[in-house]
């Protein structure tokens, strides 16, 4: 059996009485593309926020590579190797595409205030390497020709790709994509699917939330279905699609 990279144990969060996520369990294996789906309000993004450190769970545990990470801040989780994108695009809008990717490398660079003030040779070297790495990553994501463009003037689809590039450039072991295909046209969706597969080919595990069923079923290895904060089903896309409870949750029961 493959190595487990992320383990979610009895994860629960209470929003003033409302259990947005309720004793959720799942494990993600190294190198797989894992999908999290469910109707609106099922708790997908909340789960993401607890894994990445944006929210503290009420109870339960999150383990990354055998290390417990729930309750960490996002910047700590990022350093441990989880990088994420956001449902509502969160780019640094007045920065260029390249600068966005330099910020993305923050946790992997080391120069502090004084090396910056004195422009030490070490700092210069690190900066040059960072720019090179940013360019390579942009090339990999197909945004190489846009490096000097301000991120706010990219098209919607390009902004989504830039978020992925910014996450990717921090050398994560797990990348979390929150509705990466939202607002994309079919051509963009195809190249996105291709990009996700190429990210996996680099040895990076992918966890994604997506509403576009065709997209999710096409690229994921396994899927976890959430409904009202609880796990409804877990399995390969074919298994999940055949599950009567899932069909009922999505299409509504005959009441």
């Amino acid at each position: 059996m493959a190595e487990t990279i992320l383990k979610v144990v009895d994860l629960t969060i209470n929003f003033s009485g409302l259990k947005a996520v309720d004793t959720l369990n799942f494990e993600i294996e190294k190198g797989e593309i894992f999908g999290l789906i469910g109707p609106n309000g099922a708790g997908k993004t909340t789960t993401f926020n607890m894994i990445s450190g944006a929210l503290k769970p009420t109870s339960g545990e999150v383990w990354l590579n055998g290390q417990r990470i729930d309750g960490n801040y996002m910047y700590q989780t990022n350093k441990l190797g989880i990088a994420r994108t956001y449902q509502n695009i969160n780019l640094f809008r007045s920065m260029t595409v390249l600068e966005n990717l330099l910020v993305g490398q923050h946790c992997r660079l080391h120069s502090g205030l004084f090396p910056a003030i004195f422009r030490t040779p070490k700092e210069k070297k690190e900066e040059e390497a960072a720019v090179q790495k940013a360019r390579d990553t942009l090339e990999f994501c197909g945004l190489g020709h846009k490096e000097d463009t301000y991120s706010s003037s990219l098209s919607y689809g390009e902004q989504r790709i830039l978020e992925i590039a910014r996450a990717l450039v921090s050398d994560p072991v797990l990348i979390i994509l929150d509705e990466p295909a939202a607002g994309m046209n079919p051509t963009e969706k195809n190249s996105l699917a291709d990009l996700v597969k190429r990210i996996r080919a680099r040895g990076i595990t992918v966890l994604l939330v997506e509403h576009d069923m065709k997209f999710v079923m096409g690229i994921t290895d396994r899927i976890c279905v959430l409904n009202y904060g609880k796990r409804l089903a877990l399995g390969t896309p074919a298994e999940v699609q055949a599950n009567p409870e899932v069909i009922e949750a999505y299409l509504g029961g005959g009441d």
Partner: protein
Amino acid sequence: MKKNGFFETKKGKTIAAAVILALLVIIPLLMDNNIILKQNKYFYVLLCLIGIYTIITSGLDILFGYTGQISFGHAGFFCIGAYGSVLLTHPGWGLGKLTGYVLPPILSILLVACITACIGALLAVPASKLVFHFLSMLTIAFNQIIYLIANNFSWLTNGSIGITSVPAVTILGFSFSTVSSKLRYYYLVLFFVIVLLVVKTHIINSRVGRGLIAIRENPTAANGCGINVAKYKIMSFAISAFYVGLAGGLYVHMIGFVSPDTFIQNTSVIFITMLLFGGSGNLVGPILGAAVITFIQEGLQSLADYRMLIYGVLLLIIILFQPQGLSGLGKTFSGLAARGKGGESNG
């Protein structure tokens, strides 16, 4: 929209900076020797003040323009810098009164800058959790506390009367007394302005500077990119306070006198006005703002009662019609010109 234009290239920037620097060094020298214009002592005081305000607004810009944190309390840091340097160098007050020993002013200016930075960091611990109006309130309160200490702790600060005959700066036997040669002090201020502007540019164009801008742009994403937002806000406050504390030291050894009135709330508002007027988030804006507002301030001496009214109107005009400040005028004009020619105004 792409970056373009000669003055946005590295070469263009270097040339422009070199030309301006040469003018700033040569013109006062020629004036001092009556070659062009006439020697005018008052003019040097004005230039020194502009230099000091440039340091302050540049420091404020690191906090406000780059990190996106508002402060209406920078006169408090200015006060700490000024009084701090007096208490460390004056034979009759503070350290001199207690021990009989005093520090050389140039050393004390640097030391109080560091102390002010530490106080800035302390203030930032609660401040880093606040945004917008709550942060404004906290910084206003800070300003008030510092002002009241200066005004009421008479045994330490001589209260509202203030402290006179503050010693002049001497470096290696050279006196920078503003009584004998204001030109020398001008060069001292110019030296600090240049060093601090270079430092600012270096900070902004580094990993740390990108972290600060990222916080301004999007704190959530900054956190997700591995930036410890609270730590960086504290750092930004400390750097900003360092600049203003240093400016306080330079100010007090130029004027030779300190009293609490200089550090009232209005002064903090004037700093913000300078920054907004010149344009925040760039190198040139704070300089322009400091220069223009200082000239206006001096020109309006006779209208002192209406000064805040005039600032208010100016600020309103800038915010409504030129939100990027004076430093954004170039872009606005080139945008208008492009539209006039029927070219696309890229947005």
